[in-house]
């Protein structure tokens, strides 16, 4: 009987006979079985995920995040829009504002839709202030399709005011130093100019005080509707045109559409309230007493904060305009 050709490589069957082939094949099978038997008694390599967490490589990429710079005490997004422009997935939305007394522009809104993002990293490459980085989110999951729009400014909202304050002072100092240098160069003219500027700086600081009160007044306003309606309802009831669209995009819906949805929305809301309450707690511990709220609904709170910050910003802008007008006169 000739050797079976289909079981072996061509050429091999010419050297060996039928039985020799069989025996050789049998021993190769045994060697294979020896490998699996050895592994049967070795320790598994499994990472028991929910209990053990992976050590992520430094090259690991996930959704982008804002860098927290130590010397600034905050992020350094100047809302230059370069990341928005370069993003191939249209997943970034940024808005910024120029604050009075602060030299650089400042982001007032930074949204990333992680569901659209393909982690290409172009935004990080293009960022002029290097305030973008990859985050280490790796196991985010949701029952809802729209849960992956991250508000990157959220952790910075509380510190925003302090940062602005500091920045204002720093900028003023810088300006002063500049002026001093200018003074040293040109004494006669410099004296007049420095006085003028100093006045201006004082005025700005004076204006700060009444301003600081305003947000506090605004806050209860934001809270009032939230007390009645559960969670996500808050921004909608609050101000339909608000920037809160980031968190609850529904708010932008046309009035009739919102009404049409209302009956449908009723039912599941009841189910979601408890979940929202449960999840809100670990979400973000609030260190600042001024922003600590009786209601621990973090999302609504942050919305209200953004709201308040925006109002403040608006008022400042108006004041700045008025000042400019006054100066112009």
């Amino acid at each position, binding site marked *: 009987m000739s050797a079976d050709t289909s079981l072996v490589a061509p050429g091999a069957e010419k050297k060996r006979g039928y039985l020799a082939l069989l025996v050789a094949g049998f021993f190769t099978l045994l060697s294979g079985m020896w490998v699996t038997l050895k592994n049967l008694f070795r320790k598994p390599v499994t990472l028991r995920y929910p209990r053990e967490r992976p050590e992520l490589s430094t090259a690991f990429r996930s959704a982008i995040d804002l860098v927290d710079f130590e010397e600034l005490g905050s992020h350094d997004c100047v809302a230059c829009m370069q990341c928005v422009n370069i993003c191939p997935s249209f997943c970034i939305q940024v808005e910024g504002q120029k604050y009075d007394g602060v030299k650089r522009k400042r982001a007032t809104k930074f949204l990333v839709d992680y*569901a659209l993002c393909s982690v290409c990293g172009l935004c990080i490459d293009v960022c002029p202030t290097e305030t973008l980085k990859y985050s280490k989110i790796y196991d985010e999951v949701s029952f809802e399709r729209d849960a992956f729009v991250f508000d990157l400014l959220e952790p910075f909202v509380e510190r925003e005011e302090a940062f602005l304050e500091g920045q204002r002072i720093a900028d003023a100092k810088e300006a002063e130093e500049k002026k001093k240098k200018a003074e040293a160069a040109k004494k006669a003219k410099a004296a007049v100019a420095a006085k003028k500027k100093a006045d201006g700086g004082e005025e700005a600081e004076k204006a700060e005080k009444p301003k600081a009160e305003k947000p506090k007044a605004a806050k209860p306003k934001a809270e009032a509707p939230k007390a009645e309606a559960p969670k996500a309802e808050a921004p909608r009831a609050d101000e339909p045109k608000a920037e809160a669209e980031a968190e609850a995009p529904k708010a932008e819906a046309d009035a009739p559409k919102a009404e049409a949805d209302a009956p449908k929305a009723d039912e599941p809301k009841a189910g979601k309230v408890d979940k929202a309450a449960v999840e809100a707690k670990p979400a973000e511990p609030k260190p600042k007493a001024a922003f600590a709220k009786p209601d621990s609904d973090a999302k609504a709170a942050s919305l209200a904060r953004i709201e308040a910050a925006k109002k403040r910003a608006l008022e400042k802008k108006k004041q700045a305009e008025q000042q400019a007008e006054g100066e112009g006169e």
Partner: protein
Amino acid sequence: MALNGAGKGPELKEAAQPALIKKAQGAPGTLSEREEAQLMAEAEPFVRFHLLEDLLNAARANSLWPLTFGLACCAIEMMAAGAAKYDLDRFGAGVFRPSARQADVMIFAGTISRKMGPVIKALWDQMPSPKWAIAMGGCTIDGGPFKYPNQYAIYEGADKLVPVDVYIPGCPPRPEALINGILELQNKIKAGRRFKPSTHEGPIPIAKAERTNAPTGRKVKG
């Protein structure tokens, strides 16, 4: 609100916020009214046997057999999740069944092209109920990087085809994310909750704490 302009035309702004557009149009996902009604009826049965139902739900939750079914790159991560390092089988979800008749959960792992759509729908219809769907990766949530105005090639999200229970973002998500998704689905099943058509209530982030407590931490200084 006269904030500084976004620097882009309105059409790009719209593209940047597809969720907003969808909301504004009140897009009801994918389900026909009949399907919706059927699902609602399933969600609230006429008579309840609580103990039995809890038992069955626990059994179903711990025996989620996925369909061997990969669409694109995310499928590689799905395979990795079943392999030695991550081992989906620990949770009883490692029995990848080749036949839709024997599967419980469909993991959408990859871009859903227009051509694949009918096939997916057929496979989904072949699965015996109760069945669940997991959308894995950005493409299956809402189109991901392939989504742009006037695109013609893909379905913008798995929920255009079937009711999705759990969404896992990422491009692609790590195997841990898939395991987390399976665990969340188990919680959902154990709680006796069925899919209900999206009500556009707004985002409910589940793993927000996870995000802030990521291993390397968020507090990078310098």
